[in-house]
């Protein structure tokens, strides 16, 4: 078992290194053959090359966060930097929320929005310590949102009990990060039968589409429309105190893009646990025109999201529109071509 874990770790490390050093042009698939991948290659590549490295990165960020708070650095630059790194690593991981992120309901555990400050104050009074005590604290009083408030807002309490609670919240997030990383390792080690592979393949594609929709609706459309409803000009921030909405959008988008579009020079060989982006998978099935359309729409969305970094309503809605087009293609053409039924689909009834 230990040997197998080491193998998983090695493959994950190789996948992460490969992904990190991919700076050259896209695959010249017209001249170089793309291997014939199966769903198993796609699933294995995603878990080892996409999910696990991001879970590890989140875990490492959580370790740094706990360390900064254990050292009494509340409200210091160090603690705030550690929080930001944790939030962005979480955004990158949860952009395509699969496997343990869904079954453990990790988003609810660590990133419930909006935080309810009255509940945070009540939780501080309760002085919870340890896993069991933190399990009894409601989602709206802990997680990244609660820490954001405690670390950034001048009027938030700074007394000893508040600092102790902030440290417990960070430890709680870290426990979740540990559990998620372990679960992804277990997922990579597990021998899957055909049925399980097909289910995992469908889940990844569905959750990729769901990730596009989350980014489009909750992080681009809703902040603009909700602000308009309230008579405000500026989009309503999801992170009101740190203002990292644009950075989070970027982290999410980069993860979604990495899962969809191939950025390397040569298509990844089979059986090495390297991520097989959806575009590459389509090409391996001879679906080059569809892969080209996916690439074109993703590139268009990328440009619009870069422009939306100005955080202005018009550019945010334009980016949302481009994401909507990519989502529509994925639902209407990509998923049917890969014989995947889309749960998020706009095409089915109710």
């Amino acid at each position, binding site marked *: 078992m230990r040997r197998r874990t080491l193998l998983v770790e090695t493959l994950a490390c190789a996948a992460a290194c490969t992904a990190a050093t991919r700076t050259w042009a896209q695959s010249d698939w017209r001249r170089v053959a793309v291997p014939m991948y199966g769903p198993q290659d796609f699933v294995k590549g995603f878990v080892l090359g996409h999910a696990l490295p991001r879970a590890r990165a989140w875990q490492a960020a959580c370790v740094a966060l706990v360390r900064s708070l254990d050292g009494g650095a509340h409200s210091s630059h160090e603690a705030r930097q550690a929080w930001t790194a944790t939030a962005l690593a979480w955004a990158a991981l949860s952009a395509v*929320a699969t496997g343990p*992120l*869904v079954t453990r*309901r990790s*988003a*609810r555990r660590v990133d*419930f*929005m*909006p935080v309810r400050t009255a509940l945070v104050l009540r939780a501080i009074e309760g002085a919870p310590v340890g896993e069991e005590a933190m399990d009894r604290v409601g*989602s*709206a009083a802990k997680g990244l949102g609660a820490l954001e408030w405690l670390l950034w807002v001048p009027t938030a309490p700074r007394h000893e009990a508040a600092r102790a609670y902030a440290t417990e919240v960070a430890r709680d997030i870290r426990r979740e990060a540990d559990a998620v990383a372990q679960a992804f390792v277990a997922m990579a080690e597990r021998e899957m039968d055909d049925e399980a592979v097909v289910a995992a393949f469908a*889940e990844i594609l*569905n*959750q990729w589409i*769901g990730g596009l*929709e989350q980014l489009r*609706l*909750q992080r681009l*459309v*809703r902040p603009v*429309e*909700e602000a*308009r*409803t309230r008579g405000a000009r500026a989009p309503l921030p999801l992170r009101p105190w740190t203002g990292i909405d644009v950075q989070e959008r970027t982290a999410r988008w980069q993860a979604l893009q990495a899962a969809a579009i191939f950025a390397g020079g040569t298509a990844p060989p089979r059986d090495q646990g390297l991520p097989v982006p959806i575009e590459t998978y389509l090409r391996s099935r001879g679906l080059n025109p569809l892969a080209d359309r996916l690439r074109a729409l993703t590139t268009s969305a990328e440009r619009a999201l870069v422009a939306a970094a100005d955080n202005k309503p018009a550019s945010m809605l334009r980016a*949302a529109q481009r994401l*909507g*087009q990519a989502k*529509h293609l994925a639902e*209407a053409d990509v998923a049917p071509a890969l014989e995947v039924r889309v*749960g*998020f*689909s*706009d095409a*089915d*009834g*109710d």
Partner: protein
Amino acid sequence: MQDLMLTRRACLHAAAAMFAGPALAQANNASRAVSVVSLAAAWDDADGLHHVGVLELGHSSSAESPRLRIRHSLQVPTRAHAVVPWPDGSLVAVARRPGAWMLRWQPGSSKTAARWRWSESDRSFNGHVVACGPNTGGVPYGPRTLVSTETDASDGAGLLVHRDARTLAVMDEWPTRGIDPHAVLALPDGSWLVANGGVPTLPESGRMKGDRSTMESSIVQLDAAGRQRGIWRLNDKRLSLRHLARHAEGVVGVALQAEHDDADERRQAPLIALWDGQQLRPGESVALDGYAGDIVARPVGFLLGATRAGCVAQFDLQGRLLAQHPLVQACALAPLHSLGWLAAGGENYGVVSGAGREQTGRASGLRVDNHWAPMGS
């Protein structure tokens, strides 16, 4: 009297010309009358963008196809489900589950005039809303309220939520004693009937269905204070009870969606169940692919959009299949006068007059969603 009739005819011709544009106006040289029905609806355009608003369906006694056109449109961020006309001419629309928004809009006014309400992070809309009015019983918060079916994201529990119809703000929440609540019906005695669809899902994975072997669908009757008056289930746990319509004789028809693993079981499943206030029982098994969308009551019984079978299916009050009217992707249904009805399925639509005359048409680039309702209803 003759003058009055001529005047009326002239008015109808003018309405037809306005409705159908130049092409139909020329055709109107032949003497005939065009009836125009306004419908609160949701639809997608050719680019896949989502809208709510008012559609107009014009039909006549001539051989010409009925015509569907957009009268008022408001773009919305995701697919809407129910769009409900309000007595003051406005409409209330709610997003399809798991929905993030609800809105109230006066058709014809600007987009910015729409009042939006976004879901709290631990709630999602389930696609249906009912207007409470002076004639609706069971309204503890007054006639200017609405009720919507929603889900508590923390545990998946169903909720019947009372909202202020003007601000759409929450006034109260009642548990529906089930998960996945979908349609809701106000009964004349002041109670409410809710269809708990029973299909497990998670907010983290949107509409992806969980383990359907754990399905528990029901209809629950809540009294005017939200207390459970009764709960009914079918023996076949894989039948999801989803949409409701009440017949004038008091029987409620429930549209079903089959969730069996086995394709043959799904195909042969009943499309309708009937509730008489005492019992809930399935209608006869029919080979209509186990999926019913919208349901409306007509004098003879119930009509259901058999979406996957591509027809509107007509059942009597005993749940026996009486007739099938072909219409590709049939789903949205609405009554027309005392006996007729209207149906839509994607870009296709049909009109059946009270005399039984059937006409169909196609609106290229206008895909009508699951439900529509006559304005003024």
